[in-house]
């Protein structure tokens, strides 16, 4: 999937994946897509809940080995 920016949050423990994602999303324009790579297992449910509460759209998430990948459209 196409993305405007890729954020590498691999190896970071909670809360850092969300803290970094939030910062990165703030720097994007509405409609832009942020791709996030993380290894913290908790990132999946937290990113989903965070995107929803912030009005962003989680377009897709996949697991590639140990890496969780997310595509979030800024809302």
């Amino acid at each position, binding site marked *: 999937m196409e993305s405007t920016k890729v954020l590498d949050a691999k190896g970071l423990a909670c809360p850092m994946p*969300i803290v970094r994602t939030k910062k990165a999303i703030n720097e994007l324009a509405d409609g832009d897509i942020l791709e996030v790579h993380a290894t913290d297992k908790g990132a999946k449910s937290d990113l989903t*809940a*965070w995107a929803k509460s912030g009005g962003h759209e989680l377009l897709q998430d996949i697991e590639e080995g140990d890496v969780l990948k997310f595509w979030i459209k800024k809302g």
Partner: protein
Amino acid sequence: MTSSITTKELAQKVVNHEKTLILDVRNTDEFDNWKIEGGNVEVINEPYFNLLDGIDPVSGKLDKGQEVIVVCAKGGSSQMVAELLEEEGGFTKVLNLEGGMKAWSEHLEPVKIGDLKDGGGLYQFVRLGKGCLSYMVESDGEAAIIDTNRMIDIYESFAKEKGIQIKHLIDTHLHADHISGGRALAEKVGGTYHLPPKDATEVTYDYTALEEGNDIVVGNTKVKVQPIYSPGHTIGSTSLIIDDQYLLTGDILFVKSIGRPDLVGKAEDWVGDLRNSLYKRYKELSEDLIVLPAHYSFAEELGKGGSVSARLGDLYQRNEGLQVDDEDVFRKMVTENLPPQPNAYQEIRETNMGKITPEDEKQREMETGPNRCAVHG
């Protein structure tokens, strides 16, 4: 730097019914699924990611001078929120729960249930984070542990402190909600691992059969562990009468509920067994036996000092699962509208059979969440 609180210290507050305010900063789905309960605990949920721009979402709900314990999944996010509360909110008594819910799930709080007639005692190990109960029968320097949890070091150091040798590790049934530590501890201390043979048809290891008629003696005195075959939650489920005083019911009978028959996918087949165990087998026993189950589901089941127990005769008066005269109504109650199954229960069963051996971290993850072994009438 924020101060912290250990799971041990928090457990003491819970079992002593001290007023405890918890701010749980996990996401709301996880919070709704499983949270810290019991005693005099009040819990507020506000996900940490809602507090990154400031603590306004919680500042109105909390008093700055009040002690607030911040909790998350593993202790990282709660540490951040605790610092925010102090630095931005001017809170003065904020504590971070070390290790978060993951550590809370692994804490065992030993509570003495009583003395045995010929010396020795019975201890209940309360797993507050999951509602699991395990037991140590101690007599004359020897011990038997029943329904041992995965954290075997805790039992080992408890026994060591008291100068007791662990001889028998007994599981009342093949567990589906938590990983048994029975076999691992038996190997470590050179003890005997007992399991009901009907639950052991697929196991990959050697064990000693836990069967009615084969009493187990702990110590030199006459502390008798008497197995009573009581199927229903699993086909092998076996209860234990200890010292003619205590009835360890495993997952057949709880204080406020009864066991569920569906975790092996055989609810329909096992309903009759469950009913027979609860309405016939247990009825033939002395009403004065003290029921000690392998789980509790409700915070209010925690009694004095954190223990969970009830007189058998009293449960026949007030446990809703024991008041259903009509067999069809009973059948419906235990097969329909059941709560969700415990997290990873199939993998947990396979681990307990010895078929798979997940790494420690994976085992922790499999056990997250509540036990969910009961049917609530």
